């Protein structure tokens, strides 16, 4: 009997991923997973067809296109996709800062390829080529692990920020709290790595990171609680939808928005709150002993946290991925990214215009300015809520 060769189209079948019994996102449509799933259906189907040509009727081919494998592979591609988009948006933030800062300081900024965008590739290569040195007297385990943990946490937080209703990793009911919790972990690790490096500059830098944290973390949490109170939920999607139905929360919470902006600047350790790595007096602060790619990764992690800060501002006060009168629109992800870039632009302006504050000044600002302002903001929101406006 002559073996019937099957057509490739018998193997590439476009199924609805939501009909798949192993679908990981319960009842909600997820665009990146959809893309990943479809990509695997094409790729896996082609591979399965090829294997089937050589070994007709083998079990591997059918395994490659079954529901469970498709979901698994779809998830892998989904993770890659989420990370690449988050990474590229961070690189855009980095490029934006260099170019805008250059323009404000009356110089050109980066000039390597694509209007200077490829400078970050060049920098990455350069730091990667450098010798990976570690000082003799550091505490080896904490020294090495702190880099991984700080960068890992930054990547984690960055990937957890949803870009739209359909572009998310997990849709927790307490998503806002989880993001802020992971976000706030990095300063602890900075403190630990400051100890681990066995260097006086790093030690002072680490202690300063702790000092910085206690001054802005409390007002920031109050502000987040206020927004959650106004929206009636800790779910990010609910907060954005609530803003879409009423007004952007920057209008009732203008005081809170400004305070949150500065707290977010401090969270991302940017000028004027970069006291933990104050280069004028502490060389490079807590990063002093990190050389080569370790430093490059830490720098990347800093920008990732900066980009998360801006995204959080866009979610909490600028209506996330929605636009007034339009709502979700065709590509809400782009709208969301543009909003967070707008917030970052203001951070660049601040970096350009201000000097670094002192440690005692930042404690004063945190407890005597940010704290009362966030409580006033809470009181206004409570009045609005009780008065039935929202």
């Amino acid at each position, binding site marked *: 009997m002559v073996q019937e060769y099957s057509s490739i189209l018998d193997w590439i079948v476009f199924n609805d991923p939501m009909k798949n019994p192993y679908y990981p996102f319960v009842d909600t449509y997820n665009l990146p997973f959809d893309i990943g799933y479809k990509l695997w259906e094409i790729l896996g189907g082609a591979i399965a067809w090829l294997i089937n040509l050589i070994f007709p009727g083998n079990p591997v081919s059918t395994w490659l296109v079954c529901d469970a494998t498709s979901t698994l592979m779809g998830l892998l591609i989904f993770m890659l996709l989420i990370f690449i988009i988050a990474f590229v948006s961070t690189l855009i933030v980095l490029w934006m800062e260099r170019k805008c*800062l250059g323009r404000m*300081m009356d110089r050109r900024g980066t000039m390597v390829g694509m209007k200077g965008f490829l400078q970050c590739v060049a920098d990455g290569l350069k730091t990667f080529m450098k010798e990976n040195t570690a000082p003799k007297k550091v505490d080896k385990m904490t020294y090495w692990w702190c880099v991984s943990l700080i960068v890992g946490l930054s990547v984690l937080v960055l990937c957890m920020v949803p870009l739209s209703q359909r572009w998310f990793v997990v849709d927790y009911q307490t998503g806002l709290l989880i993001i802020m919790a992971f976000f706030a972990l990095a300063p602890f690790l900075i403190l630990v790595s400051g100890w681990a490096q066995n260097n006086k500059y790093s030690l002072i830098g680490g202690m300063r990171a702790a000092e910085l944290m206690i001054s802005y973390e409390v007002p920031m949490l109050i502000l987040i609680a206020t927004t959650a109170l106004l929206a009636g939920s800790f779910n990010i999607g609910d907060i954005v939808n609530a803003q879409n139905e009423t007004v952007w929360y920057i209008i009732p919470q203008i005081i809170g928005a400004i305070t949150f902006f500065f707290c977010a600047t401090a969270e991302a350790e940017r000028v004027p709150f970069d006291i933990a790595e*104050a280069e*004028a*007096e502490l060389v490079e602060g807590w990063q002093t002993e990190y050389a080569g790619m370790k430093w490059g990764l830490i720098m990347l992690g800093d920008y990732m946290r900066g980009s998360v800060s801006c995204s959080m501002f866009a979610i909490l006060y600028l209506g996330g991925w929605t636009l007034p009168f339009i709502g979700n629109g065709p590509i809400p992800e782009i709208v969301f990214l543009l909003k967070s870039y707008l917030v970052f632009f203001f951070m660049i302006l601040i970096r*350009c*215009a201000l000097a*670094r*504050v002192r440690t005692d000044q930042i404690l004063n600002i945190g407890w005597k300015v940010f704290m009362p302002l966030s409580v006033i903001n809470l009181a206004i929101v409570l009045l609005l809520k009780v008065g039935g406006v929202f």
Partner: protein
Amino acid sequence: MMTDSIVPVKEMEDRMDTDKMWVIMGPQHPFSHGLWTLKVQLDGEIVTDAEPIVGYLHRGWEKETENRTYPKIIPMADRLCYAASMTYTHLYCMTVEKALGIDIPEKAKYIRIVADEVCRIQSHLMWLAAVGTDLGNLTVFLWCMREREFFLDLNVKLCGARMTTNYPRIGGVRNDTTELFDRDIIRAVDRFEKAMWDIIALIDDSSIFVSRMKDISFLTREQCANMGLTGPAMRGCGVDFDIRRDDPYDNYDQVDFEVPVLTKGDSYSRYMIRIEEMFQSCDIIRQAVKKIQALGKNAPYRIKTPSKVPAGTAFTRLEDPRGESLMYLVSDGTDKPYRLKVRSPIFTNVSTSKAMCLGCRIADVPAILAQIDMCLGETDR
């Protein structure tokens, strides 16, 4: 009897063995503009002791001059300070002229005044740029450097070099002002006076900048006198003294200018003095350029001088951008100096760093010491 708190804080502090820690800032440290070290003792973040260490850049300048003929020392004097090369060359030529007992032409005196004030403005701009980076802002640095370029261009116009100018000569200056130099310098000064307000707005309108400098690091007049602090930093502490006005050299008595003095004595007043000095320098330049124009195109700008200096000593001082610089020449009648002693303003100014930093936080140390305006070439010589 009321107690302050339930916890006996004082007793606990006494019992706790809190160590003070020496942090060594330098010689390769972003805060030290050049090779010098500041050892600071820290109690937490508070500075409890400080000790400057200089001498990394010692080149034996004074000894080297003893093996050179007088004209050959002029380009060496340029290298004393990269930011204020003109004043040091000027000072050296003045010292030798005094030893020779000659008087130089009027025009050379005014040209030297113009060159000195251009040098003062660009040196102060360099200082302002350093203040910006020490306080953590790069915009101030780049804007000041941009403004400074116009004055370096004037140097090029006058003598062909940007920084090590090699321009004054014993008995005058090397060349007359070049064509259209008068027009260019007035334009540069006019432009600078406008552009300076942008930088001032960036710094003085920002409460962060001001709060980093205000009410820290007080120095009294007595401390200035005891430690030998001179220059703008001294005038910021309430001492009303400027060599250009009180012991005038080279026709400085013919131009009209004010010496800014502030009595508060903190870091911010030292900053304000230098800013005001730049505007006063602009006034001096305008007047001196008018005098040069009045002298006419063919007025002499240099006289011939003998190569051998008669035996004896000469001593001159001059208001450098950073303070009072002084040269003491001992001649034995040959064409080489027997001894040439330089008193650098920063070498004494930096010894006040302990008094300045005591009780401040480590974050303030760069901002305070920026007011000294370190230049290691002249300090270590």
